[in-house]
């Protein structure tokens, strides 16, 4: 068999192996919709909290977003069964960050020690950590930029005044949740269109 193989054939085989391994890894990246969903949830909570002025708006919106994310993830898993180590690592980072935020904000809210400075600082730091960890696993520079934006938002929340903090927070949500999520979804659609074909 070796005698019949040209150098071009051999290179094609190597390229096919590399493409398929990369394709399997890329399958973990189709999570843009989660960023968009949570970005919208933050906006709903902020606007709802401002209009209704009820302390229950935030926890109710966050719990609803949690349930909705869980249902949609379960539906997608039922639709396509695949499991990667990278996917599980990224999932673990976000689940751990989510649990941490839930516990901290529930405790701060119950104790009455929460204000806008603390909320944005903690949220920014946690989202910065999760985005940075995910970016390092995926080697995705754009997501690391999002992490830097969240960290900057957290630092600003420690020093800034209430109104500028709100503006910075809303901007960070728009850039790092909605815009980034839409970009990730767009990239996923584009990748599906250009998927490779291998025949026997």
């Amino acid at each position, binding site marked *: 068999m070796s005698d019949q193989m040209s150098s071009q054939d051999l290179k094609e085989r*190597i390229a096919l*192996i590399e493409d*398929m391994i990369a*394709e*399997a890894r890329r399958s973990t990246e189709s999570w843009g919709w989660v960023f968009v969903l949570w970005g919208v949830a933050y906006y709903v909570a902020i606007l709802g909290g401002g209009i209704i002025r009820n302390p229950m708006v935030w926890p109710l919106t966050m719990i609803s977003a949690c349930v909705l994310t869980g249902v949609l993830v379960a539906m997608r898993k039922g639709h396509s069964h695949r*499991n990667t180590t990278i996917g599980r690592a990224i999932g673990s980072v976000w689940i751990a960050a989510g649990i941490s935020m839930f516990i901290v904000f529930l405790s701060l809210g119950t104790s009455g020690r929460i204000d806008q400075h603390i909320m944005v600082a903690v949220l920014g730091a946690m989202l910065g950590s999760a985005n940075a960890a995910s970016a390092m696993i995926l080697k995705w520079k754009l997501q690391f930029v999002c992490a830097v934006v969240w960290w900057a938002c957290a630092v600003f929340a420690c020093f800034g005044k209430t109104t500028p903090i709100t503006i910075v927070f809303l901007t960070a949500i728009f850039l790092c949740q909605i815009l980034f999520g839409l970009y990730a979804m767009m990239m996923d659609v584009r990748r599906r269109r250009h*998927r*490779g*074909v291998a025949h026997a």
Partner: protein
Amino acid sequence: MPELPELNPVIHGKLRLAVLSLLLGIEQAEFTWLREKTGSTDGNLGAQLLKLEEAGYVAVEKKFVMRKPQSVYRITESGRQALADYVQALKQLLGSAITA
């Protein structure tokens, strides 16, 4: 002159090579996902997967999810080793092709 390595004929088929490479970067994958990623037909993919299964390179778990049959494939340890050996042989052949 050192003897050139032989390429494993079970792995050498393009579709079988694609499937093994996909499974290498993933823990387990459903038949439909493999079909989507390789762009092959049900019949062709099924036949190639059977060859890989008979060689002991992939393991299959068949189950029912919401009353629908589902086949989940994963690469075995010998499949991993065989693919690593195949890549090594490819590199050796490429090296000899360049020096020739």
